[in-house]
């Protein structure tokens, strides 16, 4: 028996598919960057000691870069979703942000 979700949110299929596609695309991009980082550390650890710029090595630049890229991709995802929500003018977009 399908008892369904506890709370119903009305978002059209087009919006749901768009968000899912955008999220998965960014997820795979980030997973690739993260995977390369783990691979480099595991297979070519000495490469991580190479100084890249400003006296900082690849390990530090890549590590901090991974954190910054996560933030940037997050903002990009929100921009894409918000733009689409406004365009489709769903009930969700009207109520987003909530209240206290």
């Amino acid at each position, binding site marked *: *028996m*399908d*008892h*369904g*979700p*506890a*709370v119903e*949110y009305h*978002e059209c299929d087009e919006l*749901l*598919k768009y*968000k*899912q596609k955008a*999220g*998965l695309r*960014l*997820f795979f991009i*980030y*997973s690739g960057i*993260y995977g390369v*980082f*783990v691979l480099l*550390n*595991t297979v070519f*650890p*000495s490469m*991580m*000691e190479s*100084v890249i710029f*400003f*006296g*900082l*090595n*690849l*390990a*530090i630049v890549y*590590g*901090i870069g*991974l*954190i*910054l890229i*996560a*933030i940037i*991709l*997050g*903002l990009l*995802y*929100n921009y894409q*979703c*918000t733009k689409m*929500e406004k365009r489709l003018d769903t009930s*969700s*977009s009207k*109520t*987003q*942000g*909530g*209240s*206290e």
Partner: protein
Amino acid sequence: MIYTASPLAVGIFFAVVATVLCISFYFGRKTTSAKGYFAAGGTIHWSVNGIAFAGDYLSAASFLGICGMIAFSGFDGFLYSIGYLAGWVVALFVVAEPLKRLGKFTFADALDSKFNSRDIRLMAAISTLVVSIFYLIPQMVGAGALVTPLLGLPHWVGVTLVGGIVIFIVTTAGMKSTTYVQFLKGALLIVFSVVLVFMVVDRGVQDVPYEGYHDFITLQAELTDGSITYVSDPAYTIAGEYTENGLHFVKLEKDGINNWWNLETDTSTLTEALTIVTLDDGSVLFNGAPREDQLFYPVGSMHRIMADGEQVEEVRGLNVISFLAVIQESEVVRFIADVFTSGDEKVRIWYQEITPGNEILSPGLKFHIDEGSSFADKMNFISLMLALFFGTAALPHVLIRYYTVPTPAAARKSTIVAITAIGFFYILTLYMGLGAMISGVLDVESSNMSAPLLAQSFGTLMFAIISAIAFATVLGTVSGLIVASSGAVAHDFIDNFLGRKLTDHKKVIAGKLAAVGTGIIAILLGIAFKGMNVAFLVGLAFAIAASANLPSILMVLFWEKTTAKGIAASITTGIISALGLIMLSPSMFTRYGLEASAAPLPLDNPGIISIPLSFAVLIIVSLMTQDKGKPQGEKALTS
């Protein structure tokens, strides 16, 4: 080390605790319904929820554990920061909105939203409890580690104190008070960490960390046939020696005090070490004397400072880039732990090792993944990074926070606020950890104390503030975990699995009783696991969450052939395999008092086996039960 409580530190600590309790009282009067208790009524603003996410997630492991690991192992500790943050990408891009859309109080609501399966309810509740308890252990260990220097109380008192306060917070007001405690703590943690990092880089790097830092002595020695026969200072006499795995330790006696030194055989030099020696009669000596004699020093300093290619005694007024560049060029004195038995002495020794900065700031000091490492070492590292990446989006206390906001869009926005705040904080951990490493403040007995002790090097006020925030950090995270556990018991287990259909009021009562029970279990385990690095322990909780919960969450969202039986089997497999592998791991064998090498598997983190196994079981069981657990023609939930 001996810690003495300062009145200022005690005052600020109690002010923070009083504030937390006031918040609980205030919201306690307003919370009457189950939705209010378990999900704060779903009315929290996304920006508040985002910072509360950060307050929830930046636990003792993040603040105390990671800073401590960086302070002792450099970049390898920072790998935890990277992995913890990367996990939020999975949460944001894949899980946040669908889970909000499908759930009510717990993540089991979302998993079960199309099946109405008692099996799923039961297994999701068990999984929530197991993951929460594993996550609670390091928080309680961290609380005990903090209270000792802050209030001069024993570890078990700290653990009991945190447990008691958190049980009070959760049983008075539930998720709403927890949210605002986490919001307050998250904001304070980030603001004061910024202040601390600014002070660290501005102070820069010095040869001698501070006036009064213990001057570790080096003596010249002579060896005959591999044994020591002469020491350059006649005040010392040779009282014994011990050799193992290329390490050579020598016991020297001076003024009636015996202590062990490290002999570097290639240069025939003896370097002073720190030791804790347990004698047959049970007495314990710290550097050859009782603890009260205070011969067991704080450590951590530079060996050689290079700035712009020149050797200097100190560099001050650095910025966030030049601070790292100076450490990269220079050399640091680290203290490496070892254990051996010599005659009637059980010796724990921390000997000096001069480590080049480029090794500090690259992998290999903790995780043996550099050249010459074994296949198992590399697998262990990959397993940890996998568990951290997939664990965040499966943590029950993170998942329930999606139900405190009104809409899926608000869930998304609050996740982005969380990623920004958490990511920024994790970058700060690198500076706090490295700052502690070279500031002569480290307590080799407790890596978890590195960040508060770094703050202490800037004065009692900073120490008091940072310690109080760290304590609030523990309170915030433990509260979230206990709310998640109480929801699993009252909502998933009693209400949905047993089918008791409790009234709103009774469901809240059941949740509060479950909170008390979980709190007591957490207190007992926190006492039992004293001394383990909290970041390592949290890594295990991530592995269990990633193995037990994530395969089900992802597959129910994206694979239309997923069945109820498949989900229940996957969660069961994830819990059992992850827990089993942890129990058989080298770290746990050490905990049992056995040799690590006796462990049947070399993996400390089970993720690389248990996560794929859980996925595989879900797929196989779902394919075998196509007609039993799932309505025909259903599509995956997000399509």
